[in-house]
């Protein structure tokens, strides 16, 4: 199940775990990323908490946790090469995997059509 937030994160939910990244639209708006800071595995966040930070030449931006949950894995590849977020934001450049506190909570988020309308 692919879902989106109005803060420009995408979530791919499988068996109660959401793989989370930022959308192509967001990556384009941010410009060339030069630094990514990811959360610690095991950290818990509430929906809307700052879970990661991305920085372009110009500015730092927060990446919010899209739902309540616990970080079970992070993607070191985007820390080693932040430009991956610009080249493959909705694929190889996922940020973290979040074990959802409520596996059904993602149902309420935007589907792809609704997100596309939001950024159109």
């Amino acid at each position, binding site marked *: 199940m692919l879902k989106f937030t109005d803060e420009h994160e995408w979530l791919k939910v499988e068996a109660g775990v959401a793989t989370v990244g930022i959308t192509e639209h967001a990556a384009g708006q941010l*410009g060339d990323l030069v*630094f990514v800071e990811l959360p610690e595995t095991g950290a818990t966040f509430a929906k809307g908490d700052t879970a990661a930070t991305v920085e372009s*030449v*110009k500015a730092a931006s927060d990446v919010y946790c899209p739902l309540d949950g616990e970080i079970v894995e992070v993607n070191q590849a985007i820390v080693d090469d932040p430009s991956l977020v610009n080249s493959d934001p909705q694929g190889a450049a996922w940020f973290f995997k979040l074990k959802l506190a409520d596996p059904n909570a993602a149902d309420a988020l935007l589907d792809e059509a609704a997100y596309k309308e939001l950024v159109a």
Partner: protein
Amino acid sequence: MEDISHLKHTPLRALHLSLGARMVPFAGYEMPVQYPDGVMKEHLHTRTAAGLFDVSHMGQVIVRPKSGKIEDAALALEKLVPVDVLGLGEGRQRYAIFTNAEGGILDDLMIANRGDHLFLVVNAACKDADFEHLKKGLSDSCEVTMLDDRALIALQGPHAEAVLGELWADVSAMRFMDVAEADLHDVTCIISRSGYTGEDGFEISIPSVSAADVTQRLLEHPDVKPIGLGARDSLRLEAGLCLYGNDIDTTTTPVEGAIEWAMQKARRAGGAREGGFPGADRILGQFAEGASRRRVGLKPEGRAPVRGGANLFADTEGKTLVGKVTSGGFGPTVDGPIAMGYVDATHTDNGTTVYAEVRGKYLPVAVAALPFVKQTYKR
């Protein structure tokens, strides 16, 4: 979307839009922050070829002596700036600052001697205040005129001379900080060999009606790309150049700001025209005794950028505050984070480690020599 309908436009706005620029509010103007290439590529293109910047938002001011003698305008202006204006030869330009009674900095500017008048370029955000300041200070002896019918562009980078040379052969005779008048495509422009990137390059004042035409023709050259405010900021930061309002302001003196080089011998203690500018007591006192803090370069040791506003500490626990970052970001040519800021006099030596507070962590940052990249001015 932010409402930007109230903002002023430069004569090049339509050109920016046609080039796909992302426009943002800056100093009351709608300005291009980047083009489709993005900040990183724009920055690197300027360092390797030539970048073209619209800086028409800046103020262009003429100071004309009522007596007809340029010396009278120079001496009058010296009452507002701690700079040797009298010694500035015809066809030469010089960096300057307006100081206040406390020795703080009201704005930084360029002053050119154009033979029968002085030509000033001031910051966009300060230009109205600067104009009033100049009229108040100089109107006894000079006519002060803000030119609102001229655009200003900058052509910067190692290919700038060759590009401009195709339009005007004499460009190679200019040295850094020379100012001359020349016809580009039959439009009379005022050209200075200067800029805000650390690269060789030119700033070109063009009558507004012809600005888009001249700019478009320069952009037709395969070596030239348009560059937005985003790369302008990373270029000047790598070059160690101050941004007024961030790195220098009314609370910082020229000595604290490490721009003593802008004050020539004639205006310092023992000079031919010592003092005689606002805040002279404080500024000359700091020349003699030093200041309690100083602007320095800062090189974060990791990959995380340290931005303006970050506090600097002597320790990793955030106990002893020793300074503050005033500008910081990522340097594409340096290929790493860079910053500048103020530190206490006891922490100014190059190589001193201080710790910047970033998102609750204390990241090691080394005090570093400025500029971060070698300047390539044609002196």
